[in-house]
């Protein structure tokens, strides 16, 4: 009897399949947190730049994500043009029509995609390629516009399970709007410990199974923590930082809570990096989340980031999840943590319903 070994049978090099996909064709990739989508978006951008001799535009949802793309590209010395969708399309439309983007009244920021596409009906795509990261949070109208009037070939990375935007697209909408092939699947989570992934899976829904966790068990179970005041929360974060250093992400629901925690941290960690980002401050370019220190973000801006340790504050405002969007938000927030995760609730005790609804004690330590 002569059989191949199991290792020979299962050559599941899924990232390689994506890196080697034809560059002159559209590509659609879905993958869970920690599957390397952002890095692959940057590498695809690099390969396209080499093919066409011009820096590839890489579009994403918000400014912190744009910053992440920049940092990944910078780390590998890759030249891409990272932009938010809002900014890139605003400039593109101006460039093509010499008029401002029409908006859907009364919204200041909501583009009128129908009007834009009608206006540009006779215009062909002007670029060879466009790469989109976090595509699930962009509206279907963008994908129609991008495929008809920006680029001949689109590469879109998405994870429907992490969509947080109210203007999000389903995978079916992305595929249909942009004329993409069926998505290739990334199935491995290289970021979270198995213990953290188990907590996140409690909130997982969707068309694909929860990701395969590649990392080994750490023995460090995520913890549910009560913290009666902003001072005690700050004290706990400082203890964590002093004991373990590394990068710590603090996720809040309300920016006012974030500012209060930020102030306490700055006062007590004057010699270390402490940052807070809100979209009003637009200070993302001064933040490098890779440098050891603490970063305070809200649930929208933490999307796409990763830290050694994550504290999700104001848990009582996030659970129990009552709709799909709330499940997705919890799933996304928990999966930001590489090694340690704390779910923190505040002055009020968690309701019995919320307590019972969270993962059991063998998964989430009480």
């Amino acid at each position, binding site marked *: *009897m*002569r059989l191949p*070994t199991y290792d020979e049978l299962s050559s*599941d090099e899924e990232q390689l*399949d994506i890196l080697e996909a034809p560059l002159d064709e559209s590509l659609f990739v879905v993958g869970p947190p920690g599957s390397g989508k952002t890095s692959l978006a940057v590498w695809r951008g690099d390969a396209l730049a080499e093919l066409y001799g011009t820096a590839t535009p890489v579009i994403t949802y918000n400014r912190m994500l744009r910053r992440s793309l920049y940092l990944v590209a910078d780390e590998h010395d890759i030249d891409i043009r990272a932009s938010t969708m809002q900014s890139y399309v605003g400039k593109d439309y101006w460039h093509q029509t010499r008029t401002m983007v029409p908006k859907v009244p009364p919204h200041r920021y909501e583009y009128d995609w129908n009007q834009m596409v009608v206006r540009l009906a006779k215009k062909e795509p002007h670029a060879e390629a466009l790469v989109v990261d976090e595509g699930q949070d962009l509206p279907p109208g963008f994908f129609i516009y991008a495929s008809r009037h920006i680029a001949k070939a689109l590469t879109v990375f998405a994870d429907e399970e992490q969509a947080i935007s109210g203007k999000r697209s389903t995978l079916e909408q992305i*595929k249909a709007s942009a004329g993409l092939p069926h*998505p290739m699947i990334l199935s491995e989570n290289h970021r979270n410990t198995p213990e953290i992934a188990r907590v996140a899976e409690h909130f997982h829904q969707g068309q694909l199974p*929860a990701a395969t966790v590649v990392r080994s068990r750490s023995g460090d179970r995520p913890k549910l923590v009560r913290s009666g005041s902003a001072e005690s929360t700050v004290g706990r974060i400082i203890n964590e930082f002093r004991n373990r250093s590394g990068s710590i992400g603090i996720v809040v629901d309300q920016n006012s809570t974030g500012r209060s925690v930020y102030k306490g941290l700055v006062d007590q960690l004057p010699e270390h990096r402490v940052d807070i980002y809100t979209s009003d401050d637009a200070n993302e370019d001064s933040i490098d989340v890779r440098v050891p220190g603490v970063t305070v973000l809200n649930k929208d801006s933490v999307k796409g980031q990763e830290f050694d340790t994550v504290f999700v504050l104001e848990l009582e405002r996030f659970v129990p999840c009552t709709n799909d969007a709330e499940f997705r938000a919890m799933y996304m927030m928990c999966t930001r943590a590489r090694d340690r995760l704390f779910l923190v609730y505040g002055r009020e005790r968690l309701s019995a319903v919320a307590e019972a609804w969270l993962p059991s004690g063998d998964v989430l330590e009480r």
Partner: protein
Amino acid sequence: MPIRLPQRLRDIRTTEIVGRVRKDPRTCGDLLLGVDRQTAMNAIGWGQAEFDEPVGSLSAEDRVLLYAYWNQLGHLEELSEAFNQLFGGNSPSQPLIVVDLGCGPFTGGLALIGQLSTGELFDYIGVDRSRAMREFGEHLATAVDSMAGTPRSKRQWVADIADATWHAPPSWRPVVVIVSFLLASPSLHVGTLLAGLEQLLSRLTRGPTTILYTNSPRVAPNRTYPAFRDGLLDAGFRLTADDTGPVHTERGERVVRYALFHRDSQRTLQLGGD
């Protein structure tokens, strides 16, 4: 090197099969459970009998025990050799799900336990139409559980593949399907078997699936193999081994017909539309 069963499997066989037969009050010299070898072989029909009915003085349980005594060891050696070559001390990174079609008394599960690392956990779905076979399989599996330092299995036993219960959503876990001597059964319908298997697999996993086929080297027991093979190829499996060859054991050489099929993890998500 001849395959040598791990000591824990030899111990189980000694206490739970050979010991039970030898200590039975009906056993005397060459008469095991009160019958000679030819009678025993007729009663177990070379492994292809309906085991749940008594035959002469032998109950259904007696017949299963005699099957385990006379026939199981060879199959255990063949499957141990196969799993040794497949996993070779290097198990998949995630816990296996094992579907053993025509499982007999936990033969595939025992062979796998002998080759996996200590402490590993796998799910085991044993499918066999014989109640007595399933019950003796669970008896052997429980005996293994009581031994320190053995891999653990979470088991279910069903008469029909359609009866398997699986409440967890599909995962990316690897599945191994064992089809050992099942196609020798004259009543087996390959199309029905493959349809049932595909339906079960779709409930278990989106991950890789490996199917191990073994059988007698004789032509007749393999007569439905071409349909089985072609059905799997149509379902996206690739054939990675397909031969007849020896398995070297301490008791000598056994020739076995074998094949190995493999299907990778799902690589694309089929959305609505084209």
